């Protein structure tokens, strides 16, 4: 019996830029073996970020303060996307952290975007609203598996 469906490996390979479907108008120039640079930036609770966004911009991002710089921090990606129990998943391999800054207002969102590919936005992650006063903020990643990985496709 045959089974219809998108291949699990396809999802993982999409995350690694293996496939370039369509006429190729968006196919970027790449250097084999060189990953894109992905960044994480923090946004105010009053902002309007969501999955409908296509490109990172600074509207609603925390203002520069102390060691917080608009544009965010570079995401560490030591582990490749993988497939577990028919779920493709990827999770950055290190926490995101910012030290010694004051947030310009309450914030509740972290946006991941690809700074190597015209700042195309990848995902929007929300959490309980927080404020930082002359302090530090860290965002620790979930376990990278089929149940909790930060980016999951099934």
């Amino acid at each position, binding site marked *: 019996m045959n089974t*219809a*469906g*998108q291949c699990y490996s396809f*999802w993982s390979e999409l995350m690694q830029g293996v496939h370039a479907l369509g006429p190729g108008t968006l196919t970027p120039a790449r250097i084999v073996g060189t990953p894109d640079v992905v960044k994480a930036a923090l946004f105010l609770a009053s902002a309007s970020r969501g999955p409908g966004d296509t490109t990172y911009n600074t509207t609603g991002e925390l203002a520069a303060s102390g060691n917080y710089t608009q544009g965010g921090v570079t995401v560490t990606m030591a582990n490749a996307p993988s497939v577990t129990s028919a*779920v493709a998943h990827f999770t950055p391999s290190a926490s995101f952290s910012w030290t*010694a800054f*004051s947030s310009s207002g309450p914030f509740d969102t972290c946006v991941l975007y690809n700074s190597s590919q015209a700042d195309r936005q990848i995902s929007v*992650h929300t*959490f*309980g609203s*927080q*404020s*930082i*006063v*002359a*302090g*530090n*903020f*860290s*965002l*620790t*990643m*979930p376990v990278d598996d089929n*149940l*909790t990985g*930060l*980016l*999951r*496709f*099934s």
Partner: protein
Amino acid sequence: MSKLTTVYGDMDDADPRLEKRTGTVNDTRERTEWIEYWMDGILVHRSVAVQLKRQSIANSEIGRIG
């Protein structure tokens, strides 16, 4: 004793004028720990650590051929 960044510059976290407050939020989406230092009724330092747990998943479907 260790250095603490505050709105008044670096301070010793053992300074008797500082009042330390901590808290935790733990639900299905995140575990968050925060730490605050107050001095004379003013919040002079607040740090937060958020552990993400489970967020949404993208489901896929395929179209029917024929």
